[in-house]
C-alpha cells in the first residue's frame, strides 16, 4: 500500500497531527481505490475549514474531490446515489451543528437502504463530522450529536481519540460496506501522535484499554480520552488506580470490553461532551448495570454536557467535562 502512496513516505511510522492523519488516510484511500470520492463544502481548494482535505483536490482532481453546493441533504442524498452506482463517497459535514439538514437522508435513506433492499444494495458511505467543543467557536460549531445517530439502526458511529486511530479507523470506515458516521474530535485535530501506516489495525468497533487500573474504570471516546488520562494521572497521585477504556465506537458499543473492565474494578464513570440526558452514558450505564449487577460497587456515573443548548464560548469550560468534574465523579463513585 505504501508504494502507491502519493505522499513521500520513507518509514511507515510518522508523527503527525490527528487532522493530518485523517488527511493521509483519505489520501491512501483515494490512491488505492478509484471508487473513493471526497465530497463536501469547501473540501477542494480550501482543503476544508480544518484543512483535513488539504491538497487532495490538487492531487486527485475535481472529479474525485468535489466541492458541493451548500446543501447537506443534497450532499448525503447524492452520496447515496453515488454509492448505488458503486462509488464509496466520504462526505464532510463542515461542523457538527450542520448535519441536521442531512438528518433525514441519513436516518431514512442511508441507514435503511441495505435493509430495505433485503441486503441487495450496500451503502459504503462515510459521513465525516468534526465535532465537540473546546475551541471557543460560535453557536452550532461545538456540539456532540453522536447519540442521535447511535439510536438509529443501520448506522455505525465511531470516534477516534488519537492520530493512529484516526488514520486506521478512517481506513476501516471507508472499507466498510455499511454507512459510518465518523466523528472527528475537532479540538484534538492539532494533537500529534505516531502513526504506523503499515500496522495491522484491530477491529474498528473494539474498545481499547489505554491505561490499566484496578479501582475504577473511566470510559470515554474521542476528545474525552485525553482528559481521562489527565484525570487518571491526578488520581494516581492520590493513590487511586484508574483504568481507562477508549471506546472508539459508539455504535456498536463494545460492552464486552467494558464488562471485563468493570468486573475487575467494580466502578464505572462514563465521560462524554454530549448532554448526559439520553446520551451514550445512559446506554452504557443501563447495559453494564444489567451485565455487572453483582460486580458494581457503585452506580455507573456519567459526566457530560448539561441539558441546555451548547453555551456561548465563554461558558463552555463550565459546560464541558473537565478535570475537576470528572475527578468529582470519581470521588463520588469511590465513596460508595
Amino acid at each position, binding site marked *: 500500500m505504501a508504494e502507491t502512496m502519493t505522499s513521500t513516505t520513507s518509514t511507515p511510522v510518522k508523527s503527525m497531527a490527528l487532522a493530518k492523519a485523517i488527511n493521509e488516510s483519505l489520501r491512501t484511500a483515494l490512491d488505492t481505490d478509484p471508487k473513493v470520492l471526497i465530497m463536501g463544502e469547501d473540501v477542494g481548494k480550501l482543503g476544508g475549514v480544518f484543512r483535513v482535505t488539504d491538497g487532495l483536490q490538487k492531487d486527485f482532481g475535481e472529479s474525485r474531490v468535489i466541492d458541493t453546493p451548500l*446543501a447537506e441533504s443534497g450532499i448525503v442524498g447524492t452520496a447515496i446515489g453515488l454509492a448505488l*452506482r458503486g462509488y464509496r463517497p466520504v462526505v464532510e459535514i463542515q461542523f457538527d451543528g450542520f448535519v441536521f439538514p442531512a438528518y433525514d437522508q441519513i436516518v431514512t435513506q442511508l441507514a435503511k437502504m441495505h435493509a430495505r433492499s433485503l441486503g441487495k444494495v450496500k451503502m459504503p458511505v462515510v459521513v465525516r463530522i468534526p465535532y465537540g467543543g473546546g475551541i471557543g467557536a460560535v453557536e452550532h460549531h461545538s456540539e456532540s450529536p453522536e447519540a442521535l445517530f447511535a439510536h438509529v439502526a443501520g448506522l455505525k458511529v465511531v470516534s477516534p481519540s488519537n492520530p493512529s486511530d484516526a488514520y486506521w479507523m478512517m481506513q476501516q470506515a471507508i472499507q466498510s460496506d455499511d454507512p459510518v458516521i465518523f466523528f472527528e474530535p475537532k479540538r484534538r485535530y492539532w494533537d500529534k501522535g505516531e502513526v504506523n501506516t503499515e500496522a495491522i489495525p484491530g477491529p474498528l468497533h473494539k474498545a481499547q484499554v489505554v491505561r490499566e487500573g484496578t479501582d475504577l474504570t473511566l470510559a470515554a471516546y474521542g476528545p474525552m480520552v485525553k482528559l481521562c488520562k489527565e484525570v487518571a494521572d491526578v488520581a494516581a497521585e492520590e493513590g487511586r488506580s484508574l483504568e481507562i477504556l477508549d471506546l472508539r465506537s459508539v455504535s456498536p458499543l463494545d460492552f464486552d470490553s467494558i464488562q471485563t473492565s468493570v468486573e475487575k474494578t467494580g466502578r464505572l464513570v462514563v465521560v462524554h461532551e454530549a448532554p448526559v440526558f439520553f446520551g451514550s452514558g445512559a446506554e452504557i450505564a443501563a447495559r453494564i448495570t444489567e451485565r455487572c449487577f453483582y460486580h458494581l460497587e457503585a452506580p455507573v456515573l456519567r459526566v457530560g454536557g448539561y441539558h441546555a443548548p451548547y453555551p456561548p464560548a465563554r461558558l463552555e469550560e463550565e459546560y464541558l467535562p473537565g478535570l475537576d468534574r470528572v475527578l468529582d465523579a470519581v470521588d463520588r463513585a469511590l465513596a460508595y
Partner: protein
Amino acid sequence: MTVESTAARTPRRSAGTTGAKSTAGKRSTAKKSPSGEPELVQLLTPEGKRVKSAEYDRFVAAITPDELRGLYRDMVLTRRFDAEATSLQRQGELGLWASLLGQEAAQIGSGRALRDDDYVFPTYREHGVAWCRGVDPSNLLGMFRGVNNGGWDPNSNNFHLYTIVIGSQTLHATGYAMGVAKDGADSAVIAYFGDGASSQGDVAESFTFSAVYNAPVVFFCQNNQWAISEPTEKQTRVPLYQRAQGYGFPGVRVDGNDVLACLAVTKWALERARGGEGPTLVEAYTYRMGAHTTSDDPTRYRHDDERAAWEAKDPILRLRRFLEASNHADEGFFAELEAESEALGRRVREAVRAMPDPDHFALFEHAYADGHALVDEERAQFAAYQASFAEAEGDN
C-alpha cells in the same frame, strides 16, 4: 375496478384538444416552453387523433404498429395489475395499495423511452414503469402486503426500490447520474416524483446539484393534480415545469394522458442527458383517477365531476381509438389482450396468496452488511426467548 369496467367507460365530454386544464387562474400568460412548443405537448388528442409537433415528432417517427400495440398492451396490463392489487387489498391480502389508475400513459410512455442501461428512481406509485423495466408485478406487492420493505434487486432491472419519504429519491437519482457521468457512460437516469413532492427541499436540492454538475438525469414529475387531499395550488402558483428554468435547465409540460407524447418528450430529455446537456424537467400533466391509496377517501375533498372530466381523457381509450382508426389493431388483438389481462390478474393473485410471511429471524437480517455486535446479541437473546416457549410447550 377491472379492465372490463374501464374499457366500457365512455367519455362524457371531450375537453378540447389541449386536454388538460391549467392550474386554475394561475396560468401564466400564453407561456411557451423553452423548446418553443405550446405549454402542453400533445401528440394524441383525447379523441385519438394524431397531432403534429415540430419538436417532438422525430422521437416517435419510426414507431411501428407493433410498438404502438405494445404501448397499448403495457397500459392495459398495468391497469389490470393495478386493479387486481386494489381488490387484493380489499380482500385483506395487502395492507395498502397505491393505485396508478389514470397515470398509465405517463408511466408507460416514459418507461418505454428508457434504454436497459438507464436507471430509474421511482416513488411508490410507478407500477407501470416497473412493468416496463421487467420487474415482476408480484414483486411490487411485497411491501404492500407487509412482508418486506422492497422486494427486488434494484440492479437486476436498473429499477430502484420504491421510496416513501417524499422527494428523497430525486437526490439519489442525481448522485447516481453524477456517477454515470464520472464513469463516462452514456446512460441516463430518470427520477419520478409527484406534484406534492415538488415542494420538498430535497427536490430543489436535486435541481441544484444536477444543474451544477450537469448530471444526466431526467426529472419526471407526474402532476396528477393531487397530493392526497391537497390540490396542486397548495404547492405552486405557476405550472410546475417552469420550476426548472430558474435552476438553469429546461422544463416542459406534456399531456400525461398521451402515451405517445410522454414517450417522445422523455426520449428528448434522455437524449439531452446522454448528449451531455444535463438535466431536464418533464411535467406530465395527468390525473389521479382513484384514491391516494386504499386508505384514502377522496369524497371528503374532491368532486366527482372532476374525475368525470378526466375520464374523457383516459390514456388507454385514446390510444385504442387511434389504433382502431388507423387499423393498427383488430378485434383479435383486443380479445387476446383481454385474455392475457385476466391471466395476469390470476397469476398475481396466486403469487400474492402464496407469498409466505417472513421468518421471525428476518428481524435481525440486513440491518448491516458487515454485522453489528448488538444485533448479534439481540438475535441470540431472541433465539433464547423463542426457545423458552418451545421448552415451555415441551414441558406441558
